[in-house]
């Protein structure tokens, strides 16, 4: 059963149509890689999925819930957008860590900022569904907040262990290597426990000897059944980590299939020439 379903995504910038009707389904726990030449619209697709860009037309369903129906609504307000965005995580090519926060605070910042709203909702719930006095509610809410903070901190440390950077928890991004920064960025995205985690060329900004450590972390996430969409130029990695590979060309999905089908048995001419170009470069 499809977990994430994208129907006919279209997106133009001025006269330039960048996405020309993208259809995509992803099952829960699946890892989908997107490959394709520069300018084919891979980043734009991820940005539309993450609501950084609004698709001009199309629909998106996640876990049977309609997240986007471009034909129906006008604009979402900021709060709706934020709630929708929280279903997804996005790891950028250039990390975009917050330079003024140390590693652990980079990871815990966003969840911590969400507490206030959660506490408000919790309080509202208590007021309407419990017999507690005002004072008791106040106490319960304070406890709720304190517990959340502890949880977020523990979760952050746990994530740092999984990316093997626990000893860097007090370092600032400027003191880390690119590979370490990207691992922190992954942990930061995971801290909000997104339903689908997206990566936009997570290793493109890294020196070749640093890509391995990042790819290893992503692979470990696959083991934990995280649903992921990975835009990548690392064909070897795409081959080994993906359940499904999508080849994009000129704003369309030109071909999709298992890694075997795509890399060993390409059908379309565009894919064939794309793959042979890469082989030439590598060789």
């Amino acid at each position, binding site marked *: 059963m499809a977990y994430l379903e994208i129907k006919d995504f279209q997106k133009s910038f001025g006269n330039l149509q960048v996405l020309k009707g993208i259809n995509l389904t992803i099952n829960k726990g699946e890892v989908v890689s997107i490959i394709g030449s520069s300018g084919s619209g891979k980043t734009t697709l991820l940005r539309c999925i993450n609501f950084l860009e609004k698709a001009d037309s199309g629909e998106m369903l996640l876990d049977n819930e309609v997240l986007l129906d471009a034909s129906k609504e006008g604009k979402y307000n900021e709060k709706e957008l934020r709630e929708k965005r929280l279903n997804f995580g*996005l790891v950028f090519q250039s990390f975009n860590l917050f330079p*003024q926060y140390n590693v652990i605070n980079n990871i815990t910042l966003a969840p911590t900022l969400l507490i206030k709203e959660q506490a408000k909702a919790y309080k509202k719930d208590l007021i309407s569904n419990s017999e507690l006095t005002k004072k008791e509610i106040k106490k319960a809410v304070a406890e709720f907040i304190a517990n959340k903070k502890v949880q977020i901190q523990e979760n952050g440390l746990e994530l740092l262990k999984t990316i093997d950077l626990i000893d860097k928890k007090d370092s600032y991004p*400027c003191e880390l290597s690119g590979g370490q920064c990207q691992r922190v960025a992954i942990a930061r995205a995971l801290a909000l426990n997104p339903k689908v985690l997206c990566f936009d060329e997570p290793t493109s900004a890294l020196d070749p000897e640093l890509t391995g450590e990042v790819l290893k972390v992503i692979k470990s996430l696959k083991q934990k059944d995280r649903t992921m969409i990975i835009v990548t130029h690392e064909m070897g990695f795409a081959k080994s980590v993906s359940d499904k590979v999508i080849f994009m060309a000129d704003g369309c999905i030109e071909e999709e299939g298992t890694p075997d089908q795509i890399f060993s048995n390409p059908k379309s001419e565009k894919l064939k020439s794309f793959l042979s170009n890469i082989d030439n470069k590598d060789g």
Partner: protein
Amino acid sequence: MDFWSVTQSLLQGFGVTCLIFIITLIFSLPLGLVISFGSMSKFKPLSAITKVFVWVIRGIPLMLQVFIVYYMIKINGKNLWGEVNRFFYFELGWAVGPPELNGEGYGGLIAVLIAFIINYACYFSEIFRGGIESVSKGQYEAGKVLGMTKNQIFNKVVLLQVIKRILAPMGNEIITLVKDTALSNSIGILEIIMVSKTFTSKAIWPLFYSGAFYLIFVGILTLLFGYLEKKLKFFKE
């Protein structure tokens, strides 16, 4: 005319200098932020008007702006600043220095402050704008995908990076403000230079002495900004 009486008079003048400096800062910093938001607004007419305004204010000498604010209100028959001063002097019992040397007293001071606040707000707004625009789009987007609100992104992510970037130009501008306060003596405000000038018929050293006040003030500010810059060295973009 001994050293101590000169010191006392100069201190009084220096008090006026500091008053102009501090009040200008307190009001022009937030106003500058508002103006910078205006000039960055996606609403084109607003950003265009703001940019023209900033261009005009930065393009005209501050002294002329002081004169314009001061005399504009005089032209309409009644001297508003004189009225203002009378109110402060007689109703509240406040005076800036001895009345006979005082121009329009508080009235003139307020004219100076209005001109200074608007002028410096425009300079600050350009510094703020430069700082805010230099923060990479990626920082905003990272905040967005992490579910932060616009305010959270600005306050928790962008602000400190902006402060770090604008610290040096702000330091320069604020030090310039210390010295620009002297322009207020063009409408007879008794700031420190005006006071020291009253001694020149007898001796010249009070002029040098007043310079020492500026040097010490600017020295303290330089140390302060150096300290802040050091404080923000812990991160790099």
